[in-house]
């Protein structure tokens, strides 16, 4: 849940990167941390296993500066994607203001994408949130693997699988190379801040 201080004109919100295991959530944050050096407000904290799988969460605080008279801070999180860490995902999702769903474009991971999206919807519901109402952006990651001969789901197929009902903005991406990462984050932040303005009226009239 975003924290808005009307006296100081500061707002802090929470954006969570969700998706199946090994889909590229941490890679997104790592690229953001390397690239947006001016906006990064602290260390990228990654709690992971020996095999570099996220164990608990990644955390990256960012400052976006002043927008419409208000100092904007955002906390980016990722969740662990492995099925067994369901309780941790639910915990990390608490107080979320916006979500980026990172889908894996590899064809053999199709079912994992769908299961993870269902898991997201269920966990949001347990927090009293609705996946159809929360600011949400999709990223179809690993598009670069097509050039290496790995069978991928087409963007159209991914849209049908995951976005037919939600109809949220979706971006093809290659988080390893940074392609699509900026656009995904920018849109997610825009949607989140607009949503928060409707809830909290944080923005001053320009």
């Amino acid at each position, binding site marked *: 849940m975003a924290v808005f201080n009307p006296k100081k004109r500061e707002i802090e919100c929470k954006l969570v990167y969700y998706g199946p295991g090994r889909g590229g959530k941490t890679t997104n944050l790592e690229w953001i941390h390397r690239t947006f050096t001016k906006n990064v407000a602290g260390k990228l904290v990654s709690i992971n296993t020996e095999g570099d799988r996220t164990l608990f969460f990644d955390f990256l605080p960012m400052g976006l500066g002043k927008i419409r008279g208000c100092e904007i801070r955002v906390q980016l999180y990722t969740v662990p994607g492995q099925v067994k860490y369901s309780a941790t995902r639910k915990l990390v999702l608490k107080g979320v203001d916006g979500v980026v769903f990172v889908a894996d474009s590899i064809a053999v991971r199709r079912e994992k994408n769908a299961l993870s999206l269902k898991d997201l919807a269920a966990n949001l519901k*347990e927090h009293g949130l609705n996946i159809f109402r929360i600011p949400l952006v999709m990223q179809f990651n690993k598009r670069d693997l097509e050039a290496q001969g790995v069978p991928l789901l087409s963007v159209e197929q991914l849209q049908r699988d995951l976005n037919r009902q939600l109809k949220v903005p979706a971006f093809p991406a290659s988080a390893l190379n940074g392609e699509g990462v900026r656009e995904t984050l920018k849109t997610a932040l825009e949607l989140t801040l607009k949503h928060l303005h409707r809830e909290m009226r944080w923005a001053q009239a320009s």
Partner: protein
Amino acid sequence: MDLASKIKGTLKQAEIFAAQGLLVEARDNYRSLIELLQAQPRIKDREKLIKSLAAKVEKMEARIRKVESAEPPPVLSPEIQALIKRLFSFSQSDDPDHVALDEAVALTKFGQYASAMAEFEILLNRPSVRLAAAKNILRCHLAAQDVPAAVEQYRRWLEDPRFDPELQAKLYGFLQSMLEQQGKGVDLPEPPDILPSEMLPTLQIEAPDEVLDINTVRIQIPEGPSKGLYVDYDVSFQSGNVISILVSETDTEVLKALQLGEILPNVEMTATVAIFKGSAKVMAKNRIKVGPRSGYFNVDLKIRAFAVSCG
């Protein structure tokens, strides 16, 4: 595609999957290559190739076993523990003791039991949170699979002047219940001067409009073969003093008790900072017909009263 290209392509794909950490997919690719080669007796160095692929399958399986093994969570650095306390304690209280309790609870959620217990120990000296801290210490021991430590801790508190008979009775009931849930038959020493709960005067107050976030609710089955047993449900939604739970259609005895308008007299609710008893009125009961929870019943319970036992 000729055979050689197919083998090369599948092998390359397996290696990409392995590098991505998609171990099951990599293993399956190697296996499919073994099957392919076994069906082709004329391939040069076939046995050598199969042996090499079998070794890769074994390697993937070892990595899969490691990933899926239920290892205890690692002990995190003090800096990360401090971050966890900052990010994952959601207390809205002004009371520093309740804030400290919530922070320690946050540590337990990430398996940092030793650090959490050290903080709960300090909070045992604060009367307002002593019971919650004690219960959480017992929870930590049980979560770390150390039943003897939990029992021993409880025994020590029976001789600890900070714990009066009322607190000891509550801890006895709490630990007994937790052990039963886990199927551990342990004979706990009863605290001295324990009174049966029905002899304790209870103070019934109406539930305030603003209530704590309730995480789980425990309902006692009133009738049938399982009469008297308790069943726990996670709270799926809460609005004020109305909570929602999802009850499986297979929980027939519980569903029978959850008739519209029915008042459940013995309900125990767990919030982040407290466990309290009360009663609840069934406000709604709807069967879910579609979706992943199809067949479940969504039940709304209005918390009707909080019972506070006093000696």
